């Protein structure tokens, strides 16, 4: 079942690296509607802004996907990894349907949907 169609309300809603592919506003609105009063939403989110993120876009220097606009990124891959050009163009809009929110922007958007931040912690992949 699509999580956006899930019926019912809950005291605890969790999501472990499972929201990346959704529209940020639509999923936050859905989560808010799923929470009972005083309910808790725990999300482990992955960010576009990691040095090597789950889009799988990797260059010869850190943050290739984040440092280059899509035009440059496509040209960079065409020059150095032409076999990956299609992959990069497909994966670039992976996070939240083309939005690349930072952690702080994630929180701001959650606030706009009536969710209040209790705590946030940043974890770094040991790469």
């Amino acid at each position, binding site marked *: *079942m*699509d*999580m956006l169609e*899930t019926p*019912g*309300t*809950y*005291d*605890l*809603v*969790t*999501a*472990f*690296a*499972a*929201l990346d592919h959704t529209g940020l506003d639509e999923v936050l609105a859905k*989560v808010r509607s*799923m929470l*009972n009063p005083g309910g*808790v939403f*725990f999300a*482990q989110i992955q960010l576009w802004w990691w040095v*090597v993120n*789950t*889009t*799988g*876009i*990797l*260059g*010869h*220097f*850190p943050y290739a996907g984040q*440092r*280059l*606009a899509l*035009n*440059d990124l496509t*040209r*960079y891959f065409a*020059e*150095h990894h032409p076999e990956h050009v299609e*992959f990069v163009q497909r994966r670039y809009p992976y996070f939240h349907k083309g939005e690349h929110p930072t952690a702080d922007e994630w929180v701001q958007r959650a606030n706009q949907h009536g969710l209040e931040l*209790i*705590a946030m*912690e940043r*974890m770094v992949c040991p*790469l």
Partner: protein
Amino acid sequence: MADHFVTEFGHRIDFVPGFYERNKEYVSWIAKTDVSQQIKTYAPQGRVDPRLLFRDWITFSAAAHFLGRHGLFDRQYQTAIDLGGAEATMMRLFAAYGAVKEASSVDLIDFSAAVDDAYFDEFIRHLNDIETLPLQIRQFINHARA
């Protein structure tokens, strides 16, 4: 091979020797990963690979530790749902540790049969019987519990 890239704005970005080579194995794993396929491939006899269960347990442990530090783990939630929990492992763990009474999961594909109750119970028993686990995992758990 070139050692730098010049953007359309004229900015020069130098390549970092070894960066691509150090990370390409991880990235190629992502590029090839279709989670649904991964679960199927790694599921002998329809059951999920114990390495994936162990990965979920580590993720759960980090979450439980985080929630606990903010007074949010021991609330004994009456109802809970995990979004994207195809194998329903996370909510089983929440329930197994007494944090949740009525646990459910939702995902596009239901893979909960890949972690049936007997298999999950066996996994929990192994975690609690630390001496039966491989040395590396014992060291990890001992470190995490310290």
